[in-house]
């Protein structure tokens, strides 16, 4: 019935929505930033632990749609073990992919995150996918406050 939506709602997204990874409060987090999308009410708190410039742990709390939950869940998995610079690079690539400006974007270069490429076709949903990464960006820049997609 929802054949048109297969690109947007891939099985991986349903899976992460049902069973979000790293969904927990982090004790003694080095960074803790809140992300908020006032348009839809999505709210998340992102926690990071750092060793030097390496992200050793990432977790989150909050509520949002399937796209935003899957996005933040995937992100917490992927950034673990990455340096801050590597994470920022990923953010840049993710942003390029979801805003769809580059038609020749190489989906293989972004690995697992490619499952979220479908939002390109749904401008109203791009912010759902990028909220987590904007929050990470703020956390890495040590902005200890809430950030908003607006």
């Amino acid at each position, binding site marked *: 019935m*929802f054949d048109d939506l297969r690109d947007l*709602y891939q099985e991986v997204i349903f899976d992460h929505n049902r069973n979000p990874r790293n969904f927990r409060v982090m004790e003694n987090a080095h960074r803790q930033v809140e992300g908020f999308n006032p348009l*839809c*009410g*999505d709210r998340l708190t992102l926690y990071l632990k750092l060793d030097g410039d390496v992200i050793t742990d990432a977790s989150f709390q909050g*509520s949002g*749609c399937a796209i935003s939950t899957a996005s933040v869940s995937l992100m917490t998995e992927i950034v673990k073990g990455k340096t801050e610079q590597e994470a920022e690079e990923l953010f840049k690539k993710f942003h390029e992919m979801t805003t769809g400006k580059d038609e020749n974007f190489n989906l293989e270069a972004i690995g697992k995150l490619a499952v979220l490429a479908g939002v390109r076709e*749904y401008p109203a949903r791009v912010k759902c996918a990028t909220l987590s990464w904007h929050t990470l960006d703020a956390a890495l820049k040590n902005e200890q406050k809430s950030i908003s997609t607006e």
Partner: protein
Amino acid sequence: MTNFPIEKIRADFPILAEKIRNKPLVYLDNAATCQKPQAVIDSIVHLYSHVYANVHRGVHTLSVRSTGLFEGARTKVKDFINAASEKEIIFVRGATEAINLVAQTYGKTNIKPGDEIIITAMEHHSNIVPWQMLCEQTGAVLQVAPMNLLGELLFDQFEKLINDKTRLVSVVHMSNALGTINPVKKIIATAHAQGIPVLLDGAQAIPHMTVDVQDLDCDFYVFSGHKLYAPTGTGVLYGKQALLEAMPPYQGGGDMIRKVTFEETEYNVLPYKFEAGTPDIAGVIGLGAAIDYLNGIGMDKIAAYEAELLADATEKTHKIKGLLIIGEAEHKGAILSFVLDKIHPHDIGTMLDSLGIAIRAGHHCAMPVMDFYKVPATARASFAMYNTKEEIDVLMNGIESLIEVFG
């Protein structure tokens, strides 16, 4: 419902024949804005093709004709809400501007530090923020009358809020997020017993029921044209003549003046005192055409048909496991706000859109209402006179299927 000319009405709205993602459009976002009948579209095409010029200015033929159509629309609005005079009908951009106008003219003149303004817990942001701004400017205090979990105003609590500091009551006639129709006659009588004027935000109520401002005895009534099957950019502020006469103008400019020198300006009479600058001429004439169209069907018949639609939709949702209706007031207009267990309204909105169904997902410019129900957002299907029970079936099938997919 027998006798309701639903097929003819649907044929009058060209957009209803559109396909969305290869499916017939099921338009259920009418509380956000309504679609336009051919008669309204034609009125604008006719105006720009044959009649258009500026109003209230030229002595030339087209200006006189445009002015005639424009002022004719004012008379239609006056009759539609049964105002006593055309002087009481002010054209603005929408309900939002009308409330801001009252806050910044009536409010600034009459409201002093320590005074109180009462609204309700179910207001749209447009009936909250203008009063917060006024309170900031004047030192007045905003009081909020609470509601119960059904989304009904707690009338005794409202009554208790009224005291000798209360200067204005501003309440929504029908809630956009919940569908609640407030007991406005009782609210007005109670406030008037203490000499307090009442503004009704009629943005949602106006397309769904007969509104008689003299019978209600409200002091101000505001609504937007685009929710009444008319073009965007038009709205109406109704005010009792004596109140409007005593209010200072809102914006300065052309049309709202009688005489200008560099030393002083003499303001124009009602309603022009509040209509600075060239108005939305085509929009207002389109509003007149929308009112003619609605009168041809009859607001009482529309209300009866929509009540059937709401009852049908409500009954069908009861069969869907995990669906919770937000807003179950006894007196309710044709709005169905709901949440699904573990499925976010935005996912619902995207999923239904892929089936050609347009609903709203979000906070509906009523964040305090969302906070009250402890939900970030709701999905909202809002009905108009051109919707059908078959469309409600399409909606329900869509909801059941997406619940399955999300499992």
